[in-house]
């Protein structure tokens, strides 16, 4: 399954990926690169969702299990596991995801605010957007799927670790 978008007036590109049977999206501008999963060097004294650190061309960057970070079951590593390397407010981090799907353009107006849910931290879901999908046989699924847009700043590791520390 790939996600597509035929809307005119699209002004934002997002990368969609699956995690815990959901489809998530992050802003394309924050993405540095997508890498294959490579076992990172574990760190002591850090929350469990931080899988460790890895070497990104001479930079030491943390690798985060995004599923755990969002409260889902930890991802099982498989052949299509990927690490999305992103830039959050000048810091680089890798997010482990189950599978990267597509890059789609969306219009700002299509984004619906995420429902207010009571959680300990402020929501890391920036908004929801529906994306029409194309099935493998080429037919359009008009119902589309829901993509959860992640608020990377709210995910910021530093912020979260300050709370944890």
């Amino acid at each position: 399954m790939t996600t597509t978008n035929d809307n005119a007036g699209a002004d934002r590109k997002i990368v969609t990926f699956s995690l815990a049977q959901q489809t998530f999206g992050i802003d394309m501008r924050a993405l540095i690169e997508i890498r294959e999963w490579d076992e990172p060097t574990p760190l002591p004294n850090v929350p469990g969702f931080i899988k460790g650190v890895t070497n990104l061309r001479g930079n030491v960057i943390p690798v985060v299990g995004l599923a755990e970070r969002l409260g889902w079951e930890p991802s099982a590593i498989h052949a299509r596991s990927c690490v999305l390397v992103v830039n959050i407010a000048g810091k680089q981090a890798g997010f482990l995801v189950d599978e990267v799907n597509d890059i789609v353009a969306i219009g700002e107006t299509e984004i619906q605010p995420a429902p207010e849910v009571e959680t300990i931290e402020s929501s890391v879901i920036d908004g929801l957007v529906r994306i029409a999908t194309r099935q493998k046989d080429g037919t359009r699924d008009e119902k589309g799927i829901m993509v959860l847009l992640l608020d990377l700043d709210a995910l910021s590791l530093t912020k979260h670790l300050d709370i944890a520390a």
Partner: protein
Amino acid sequence: MSDEFDDIQAIFFEECTEGLTTAEQGLSAMQGGDVSAEVIAGVFRAVHSIKGGAGAFGHADLTAFAHKFENVLDEVRGGKIPPSPGVVKVMLSAFDVLSDHVECAKGLAPRPADQAALDALEQVLANKGADDGAPAANSAATVAPVAAEPPAAAGEADEFGFVPMAVSLDDFDAPAAPAAVDGAWIVTFKPSRAALANAGEPLLIIRELETLGAEIIGVDTGTVPSLRDLDPEDAYFTWTLRLPAELPESDITDCFDFVAPDSVVEVRRDAVAAAPVAEVAPAPAAAPAEDDFGFVPVTAGVEDLAAEMQRVVEQIAAASPPIGSVETPAIAPKAGAGDAQQTIRVDLGKLDLLLNLVGELVIRNSILADRLSPADRQRVELPELARLTRQIQDNVMSLRAQPIKQAFSRVPRMLRDLSVETGKQINLETIGETTEVDKGVIEKIGDPLTHMIRNAADHGLESAEERIAAGKSPEGTIKLSAEQRGARIFVRVQDNGRGINRERVKAKAIEKGIISADAQLSNEEIDQLICAPGFSTAETISNISGRGVGMDVVRSNVEALGGRVEIHSVPGEGTTFTMILPLTLAILDGMIVRLAGQRFVLPLAHVLETVQPEIGQVKRTSPDSEVIDMRGEYVPVKRATEIFGLNDDRQVEDSLVVIVESEGSGKVGLVVDTIDDRREVVIKSLDQNLHPIRGLGGATILGDGSIALILDIEALVASTNRYTPKGLAA
């Protein structure tokens, strides 16, 4: 677009910082009595370039203030205002305000109140600094040039519509006047064809020069061809002008800013002793080789002038014999300074990258050494390669090294402020400010240094009355020094004040619950208490600092740099704080060890020895604590695997115990699986992308691209009772 502007502006601010440093050093030197032309010119140039940049970026307040300051400096440089202590004092305060203006331009501070400083500068300008006993003799030179005798034959120049004016030669009669010492400026100007084609009207430039007091002393018409060959669009004239000696050269060159580059512009000092004007004039002919023009002095007036000059020159020569040599120092330092400080501005990021690459090279080198047989090593000249690599590494490190002066430079200003706030008289002595340290270290010691200086000024030094009562001189002294010892640098802040009041410190520590009431402490242990968090002995916490308030911050900052703080105090004689820091934050000599199979780097500086424990050598003293018997000395043993929560089912007898020495806890044994290697590693900070992690000093990338974490020994071994001195109840 605006990013680009910001980048350029960032460069300007960096230059401002450098300029301010230079200016401050110059002013401090002047305050100390060194009022040589070189020093004054240095300060002038610094302020001048700040003004220039500020103007270009539209920082109006900064420009205006720098301009006024520059005016005063210019007069001082021209010898019209004597650099008396009073004037230097005004300039020092002006410097402070200038720094504030720069901060304001950066958006880091509100606009400073500069009126008082402006008034003071104005005052100095108005009365030529005479209020503090300036020698009246200088006033002769300050008289504006007067057009005394209009040249007889101005006709030649008339077609351009200007009236030549002459310098009143009477002014030169005062033998001590600096204007007479330096030769007048002689400017040769031959616009090019291109300049005329680009509407570079020579008349406008000559008029501008005239407003500065220029006088045309010659127009070379020798290159004008016959009418038949005349190209009306070409330029044929060469003007020679004389300008008053006391003008700064930059004022003259500024006039030529927009002249096409292929025009001939020469600005030089008239050779006073040797030169009647007629002989000076042919000199410019040497410049453009293609024009073989015979220079003809055109006006009769010039000849009169030449005769007059000759007379004056003879008078001056009689009054002060070595006149010929005087002009040399006036010009030489400027040229010399330009040559000596050939530098290039490099983005620190690029240097870091280079350092990383060199680090990789070092690692590759050692891998190569491991894999080659001894015979092959010789064949590929591996030792030679290793030596080269080491040299490259040392050189790259030295590129990042900067004199610690940069960190020290803001101290004088701070002390001036503190002096006002506390009403104490404070002298500053600096030693070893040329000691070179890695730029990263310099940046990070700023805050701890500030704290220590403030502490010393506020609490270390007594008031003048107290000092007199104690039989000391009323002025307190703070000594700031830096020295390198091996791979460490020692930065000391020493005051000759009252010393630490140990009774009060101890009482306070008991009151705050930092130590128990019956604790027996040595003097050193008591002194260390002021670095404990939340400790303050200041009865009323002043707005400056309390000794103790912030000292814990100093200590943790310094420890974060891999350094430590030592305190030494003698009651009644003063206190010395010593920061002992690594020279660089970039490379570390480390031991690669394994903990539960994972590789870690243990900083070699901490390692005393390694032991393979025999059965029974490690003993339990409680369910959670062990000691190792080291030749009769029982050393506590820590398992890093436990602290880090790693799975480890190894027997201690199968492991190695590395005895490390830590600042806070003395000797401690660390249990590791094995030791892999010893090598230099390039330190990568974890907080760059993550967050500092307790027990880790960073990470490094090994030769195979994998990551090894660097152990922070201090934090590891002191993890349970970090701030509690040995043997005390917590």
